[in-house]
């Protein structure tokens, strides 16, 4: 159980994000829940690349050959962070505009196209 502890945390955060979107009553709340959901992948990737006793993979102050943690997942996470923030920016723009056009911030009122 403890061996895989961060992975379960990642699963939990993923479900929390989904739960937030499902119960949301305000579109900004929906967007923030989505941001939370995305952080689950940070935990997962970070935990995968971590190594007990490993150093940060920056050879400015450690000599080559020292055991480090995985730099690849960190590069992937950098991409991930930027992707998250851009998608959130775009979604927020939609929320703002939807409010300006429809005068509502509730997902219950998004039903312009039912059926």
């Amino acid at each position, binding site marked *: 159980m403890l061996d895989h*502890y*961060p992975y379960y*945390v990642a699963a*939990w*955060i993923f479900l*929390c*994000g989904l*739960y*937030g979107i499902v*119960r949301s*009553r*305000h579109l*900004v*709340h929906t*967007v*923030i*829940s989505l*941001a*939370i959901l995305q*952080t689950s992948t*940070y*935990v997962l990737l*970070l*935990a995968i690349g*971590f190594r*007990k006793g*490993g*150093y*940060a*993979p*920056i050879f400015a102050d450690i000599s080559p050959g020292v055991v*480090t*943690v995985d730099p690849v997942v*960190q590069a992937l*996470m*950098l991409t991930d*962070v*930027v992707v*998250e*923030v851009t998608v*959130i*920016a775009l979604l*927020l*723009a939609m*929320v*703002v505009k939807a*409010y*300006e056009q429809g*005068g509502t*911030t509730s997902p219950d009122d998004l039903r312009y196209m039912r059926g």
Partner: protein
Amino acid sequence: MMILGSGLLALIAVSAFVIVRTDDVTNQIIALSFYGLLFALMFFIFQAPDVALSQVTVGAIALPLMVMLAITRMKHREELNKRKQEKSR
């Protein structure tokens, strides 16, 4: 380090749930910023200074700021509409 990290992970798990359960958006922004900082701290502990730096700038500052700007703009519009209504009366 591992114990500190595990504790931080638990804290993150709890705050994720708290944030999605918070209905008031302003409170959520503050919590989100705090949550971003927790992540930055965790990246430092788990030897990922690059990601930590980008998390501090993006997750703890840029992201909450953007939500705040969006809400400011929405409030601004709300006020405009109110004024319009008052005038028409």
